[in-house]
């Protein structure tokens, strides 16, 4: 890896050209105390720290409270369909590899209706930071159990408690081929969240970040009410994310090497029953991005060369005058 001085200056000694206002449109319309506010702030701070020009960022979302995100972040945005943020992201990524891509989904959005795209986009490993605001509930539609709702969650479609153990998104993603980055953080840990987002942003490939998100309106008690009592553990490693424990001061720190998939799976498997891991679960910087994979096979040429080639193809279907064939 060569390091050139301009690069170094650009990356490390940059002055922040942008203010938080440069990333802000209207005041965010989420409820008071909603964890999405914190996530939005963390994204904005992260963008400022990375000195990203707002016009070079594209934010794609699905449908849900969480998916209102692009409307409050001053970047280009596409608020798509419930569950379909990832296919649109794949298209955006293929179209404009030079742009930076942020994809925001809710738990229902990504893990329920969007489950198929979730699996496959992880496998494509497009270059994007993909965050899930997981409040363990369908919030926008006013309280139905989501796949991550803990068993027994009282909701409008499970008024006597939800029936199943929650789906474990971490253990699922850790089974997907071409996985390159998995981290978990929480909306009430602003420092940790920003640090995590920053790592994700700098990662080349698909950085999957699950943000445990408070929804005080429909799930006030989730995550132990986002109190200091929330049973969590911080993952620590020299290549990981530095624990910033915020309110979870007493949460243990455990060593975890994010290059060890099996160790990550073990941690993930016990997340719900045991302690929610916060930090970097898995990292593999060697996986090529989908753009790399695909564009390395694509020929670049000007319109005249293309026209010439198309003429050749058309000629290969010519009849009547076989002598003229190439």
């Amino acid at each position, binding site marked *: 890896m060569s390091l050139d001085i301009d690069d170094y200056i650009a990356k490390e000694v940059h002055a922040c050209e942008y203010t938080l206002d440069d990333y802000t449109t209207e005041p965010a319309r989420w409820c008071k105390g909603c964890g999405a506010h914190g996530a939005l702030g963390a994204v904005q701070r992260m963008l400022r720290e990375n000195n990203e020009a707002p016009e070079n960022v594209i934010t794609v979302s699905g449908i849900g409270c969480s998916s209102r995100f692009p409307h409050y972040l001053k970047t280009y945005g596409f608020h798509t369909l419930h569950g379909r943020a990832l296919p649109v992201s*794949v298209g955006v990524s293929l179209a404009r590899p030079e742009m930076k891509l942020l994809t925001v989904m809710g738990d229902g959005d990504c893990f329920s209706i969007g489950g198929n795209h979730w699996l496959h986009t992880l496998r494509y490993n497009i270059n994007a930071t993909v965050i899930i605001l997981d409040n363990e509930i369908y919030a926008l539609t006013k309280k139905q159990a989501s796949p991550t709702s803990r068993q027994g969650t009282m909701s409008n479609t499970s008024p006597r408690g939800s029936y199943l153990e929650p789906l474990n998104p971490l253990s699922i993603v850790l089974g997907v081929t071409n996985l390159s980055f998995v981290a978990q953080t929480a909306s009430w840990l602003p420092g940790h969240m920003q640090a995590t987002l920053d790592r994700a942003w700098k990662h080349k490939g698909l950085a999957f970040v699950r943000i445990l998100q408070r929804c005080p309106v429909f799930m006030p008690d989730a995550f132990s009410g986002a109190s200091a009592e929330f049973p969590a553990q911080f993952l620590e490693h020299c290549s990981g994310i530095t624990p910033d424990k915020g309110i979870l001061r007493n949460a243990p720190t455990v060593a975890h090497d994010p290059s060890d998939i099996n160790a990550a799976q073990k941690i993930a498997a016990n997340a719900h029953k045991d302690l929610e891991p916060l930090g970097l679960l898995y990292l593999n910087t060697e996986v090529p991005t989908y753009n790399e994979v*695909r564009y390395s096979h694509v020929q670049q040429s000007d319109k005249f060369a293309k026209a010439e080639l198309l003429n050749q193809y058309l000629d290969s279907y010519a009849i009547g005058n076989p002598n003229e064939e190439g």
Partner: protein
Amino acid sequence: MSKATFETKITELDEHIVEIVSDAGEGAQAAGNTFAEVCARSGNGLWTVEIIPSEIQPPPHTTGSASGNRIRVGNSPITNGGDLTNLVVAFNEMALLSRIQTDSLAPDVTVIIDDMWSRHDDAQIRQDYREILDDLSAKGAKVWELPIETECQRVAPDSTRGKNMFIVGMLLCLYNKDLEAGFTIVDEMFGARSQAIVEMNVKLMEAGYIFAQQTFAETYSIAPLQDTDNLVAMNGNTAIALGSVAAGYELCAMYPITPATSASHELSDFFEKFGGIVHQAEDEIAAIGVAVGSNWAGKPALTITSGPGLALKTEFQGLTVMSETPLVLVNVQRGGPSTGLPTKVEQGDLLAALWATPGDAPKVVIAPSSIEECYHIMPLARKISEEFRALVIVLSDANLATGRQLFKRPTVNPDLLSNTLDMSPVPPGTKPFDWDPETGLSQQILPGRPDGMWVATGLNHTPEGKINYLSASNQLGMTMRSRKLAVLQSTLKTPEIFGDDSGDLLIVGWGSTKGAIWEAVAKERAQGVKVSAMNIQFISPLPPGLKEAFGKFKKVMAVELNYADDPNDPYITPENRRYTQLATILRSNTLVDVDCWGKVPGSPLMPQEVRSIIQTQIENIK
């Protein structure tokens, strides 16, 4: 040696329909293609139809195994697969039977069949063979039972494979085509692989030719077209693939489905050389989503599918319309509903294309009516989609997709082949939906442009792109999106009428049936019948002038390959009759009592069917 050397009667023909059928894997398709290629290069008009078994590897020597090619060759441009087959070469009696069962053979068809089955060990086979042939003869067929395998073995003792080239040789002789041209094609096909294979096939072809010279006292000759300059021959899916390149597309997002997929196969083969990518998505929903994302971000993308895939793309169509993201969706129609008849032709997706999207989602729907149009419609569709920020659905079908036709070689416009993005800063006050209040048109602001940040959404939104729930805003957005169709409509012309502008009967069609309908109309007109035809390419918006044009005929009838109730059936009344799909729309649009003929045979429309429709109608009118 390339022409019949001893005295035979050569009959001049305007056209002939030739079929070659074998068990799947025996090479009848290759034989058909080779013969068709020779005919094309000799300057004949041409339409080929693939005969495809429904299973991947059906049990051999069954009707389900019949595989091959149907080649219509003529001395004038040919626009459709034609009527009944004049000559069929069958590798076995079951392949032949399958053609009888699909009602494809003329009563006086010439049948050439391998006589080996008459001596087969299996008594059942011997009996079937005899019965089928006797039956055909009784009905007027001219049957040639020939020792094809035996003759082949003289040339290539070990090979059961080369029979197909032997048959090509016979056909070249029968139709007085140039044997050397056949050799050339063999060389093009196998030359790169192995010279030994070339030689073997050349030998078999020559043997077939000579055998035919010795066998047939009458041969045929079909003159070349008047103008054979600068023609190409290809099928509709290849035309769509090449047309997509010509239109400047750089991404095709798809999920495999018959009969659309072969267009993506073609693109997969050469798109990367043009800077393009075929993205095989995890499903059809993702495929359209990827295309929408790409178009929104500035790389021209299309998506290609068939019926069940179209169904899955319904929700995203709504987002495309609402966010005014340009998109071309090609739907290659097959038999429906549901899985239906996956490999067969139908025109059953018209209403779905128009109206599947919940809510009011105005979109453009156009249909190519020939293979040539499959090519040219792609740049047109892209242009409309971008100028109108619209969803354009292109309705092709299995008949166009797999048929092969001659047409004028298109010229390439290099300007469509570059896609440079305007990344200049956006002037202050520019809105992402800066609707012209008259036309509803506006300019898309591509991501990356400084000061232009906006958010696309499927929710109702203001010109600024902001979510809005007020009545006036919703009414405005709907009006602007609808207005674009009216503007597009104002640029359209009333479709040409084939035949006189007035008369007894006007047959209206759309899409791939044009060739058959116009041919039938031409023939009936030649008999003095006052019938004309119209093909409608723009179905949404419909072109102007239809009501007036219809008014000049005593009767207007839509002819389509989709279902309509037969008015004479039990329980069917004029009130509850379900009309064909175009007829349904035309009736609503024009209030003219457009009648219809609609069937779902899974096979292309034949001109003779249309002629008999015309004859019945004319009788009723009189």
